[in-house]
């Protein structure tokens, strides 16, 4: 076959010609291929939502069809905390006050600012206070960071209280949401404990005496405190009672600082996060947010109800 193709001019010259011919062909094609591809590329970029990268991230169109509005929520791991649709009146601010969501948002803000603060802080008696001074005077935006962490913490306490207040006033703890109310009470306690453990960390007079006052109460724990009822009878002393366990010593000192640091930055946030997951999950599983529901008349109060009533149903 090769001989036939090479023809009478012999093998070697023919080879050179053929290479030349093919390369010219390539060059010719290059002149038309690349501009075509470039044109296609530019055309494609005019609608980035059609690129493979985009469609791999967002798996549906982003338009105003009911299907895609629902998918926008359902196909997003962060948004799918929500149902696709809710009671038309549940979006009214006057019903929920938005306090649960604001509490969660503040928790995120606190985690973010808290992690940044941890870069500048050593939980030791020698360095803790100096670190705060350094943070306030030398670290760029350090003062803002610390202020934000503190005020967000105070705001979170207030938001949690108002959230509980709203949930109570709307009777949202009633069947079938009893258990989630309990998770909420625990989250309230952990919010206060988070704030309280953070109070000691600047290692200043304010935190020191606040925590001293707070933990002195633990001395008086019945049975488990050395000044509490029946405590001494059970062999409680300042060196083995529940206060000793909290402080890691008989006074508020280096161990107390380390313990409150670890509770504040690791222990309680983990527990609170787990409880939050359960809390949000149960909001959905118990039929979404409680209302605004239809008002119930006196005559209907003792009629058996069929299953959990979803909001607005």
């Amino acid at each position: 076959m090769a001989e036939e193709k090479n023809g009478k001019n012999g093998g070697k010259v023919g080879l050179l010609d053929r290479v030349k011919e093919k390369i010219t062909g390539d060059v010719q094609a290059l002149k038309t291929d690349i501009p075509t591809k470039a044109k296609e590329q530019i055309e494609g970029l005019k609608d980035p939502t059609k690129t493979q990268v985009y469609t791999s991230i967002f798996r549906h169109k982003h338009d105003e069809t009911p299907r895609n509005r629902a998918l926008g929520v359902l196909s997003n791991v962060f948004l799918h905390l929500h149902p696709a649709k809710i009671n038309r009146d549940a979006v009214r601010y006057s019903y929920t006050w938005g306090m649960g969501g604001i509490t969660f948002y503040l928790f995120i803000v606190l985690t973010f600012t808290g992690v940044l603060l941890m870069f500048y802080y050593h939980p030791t008696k020698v360095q803790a206070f100096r670190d705060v001074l350094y943070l306030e005077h030398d670290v760029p935006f350090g003062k803002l960071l610390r202020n934000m962490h503190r005020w967000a913490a105070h705001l979170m306490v207030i938001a949690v209280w108002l959230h509980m207040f709203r949930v109570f006033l709307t009777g949202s703890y009633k069947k079938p949401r009893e258990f989630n109310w309990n998770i909420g009470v625990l989250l309230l306690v952990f919010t206060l404990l988070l704030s309280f453990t953070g109070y000691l960390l600047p290692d200043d007079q304010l935190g020191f005496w606040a925590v001293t006052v707070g933990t002195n109460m633990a001395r008086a724990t019945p049975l488990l405190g050395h000044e509490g009822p029946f405590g001494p009878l059970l062999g409680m002393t300042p060196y083995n009672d529940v206060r000793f366990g909290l402080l890691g010593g008989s006074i508020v000192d280096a161990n107390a600082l380390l313990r409150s640091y670890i509770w504040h930055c690791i222990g309680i946030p983990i527990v609170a996060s787990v409880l939050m997951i359960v809390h949000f999950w149960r909001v959905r599983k118990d039929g979404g947010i409680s209302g605004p529901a239809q008002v119930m008349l006196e005559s209907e109060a003792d009629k058996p109800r069929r299953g959990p009533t979803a909001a607005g149903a």
Partner: protein
Amino acid sequence: MDWRQLWEIISAPDNVPIVGLIPLLAFYIYLAWKQAHANDQLVAQLETDPAMAKTHHRKTWPFKPGWQKEVHVWPFLLRIEFLAAIIVTIILMVWSITLNAPLEEPANPNLTMNPAKAPWYFLGLQEMLVYFDPWIAGVVMPTLIIIGLMVIPYIDTNPKGSGYYTWKQRRFAISTFLFGFIILWVSMIIIGTFIRGPGWQWFWPGQTWDHNRLIYEVNRDLPDIFGITSNLGKAIFGLVIVGGYFALGGFLVYSLFRRYMPKDFSRMSLLQFSITQAFLLIMVALPLKMLLRLLWHIKYVWITPWFNI
């Protein structure tokens, strides 16, 4: 009137949240009351008009047949959440730029702060230390508050008022919660923050905090008034008083429930009712003990070798 003293207390950075809490609470109580009132009116209207009750959509907000009962979360809820996050961030930014977090001198165990105050959200409990021993104010009460909150859904057998604001359908539940939250918790915090000065003494707003002020107050124990001197006598006397309070109070709660809330009472099991009684009486005992102290300077009611109440 010491305006400077007043300003110093109100503007102390850590007291600002409480100053903010007061108008916030007032606003949200108003908001809740407005909706409760509207719902109560609607209920009254529907109760008298059964035909309307069958067709009405049973909410105070407008609704017309053909309107969607539900809206899409995207965008109708998410835009609100996004807006809320932005507003909270702006508030936090402005607050953090304008007001510095407090930082006192380095911790010094040899230099006692006077007054030494717990963080503001625990000041209600610290205020209770005036009237109760630490084991009650610091340990038993917080525990009971937590447990008390947790039992609420299991003792409230009233099916009405689930998912909407109302006052008339839940008078007892709401007034009890308001009593506990506003009067016992928030107002004690306000007293602890703004009123209590050096030595945890009572200083009216605007009064100068006098670190040398001494108050000569002779507190007595209740058994002393009755001339009981022996330890055994005091223990038995206290037991009778405290036991009597719970027995008589329990009976009072029972007769009030039977008379004014017969339906709620009939829905409750014995266990539900006795838990309600117990928490109600413990809660009411708090201001009662405070009154005993404030009016008659009584320190303890029940004295035993192991604990005093």
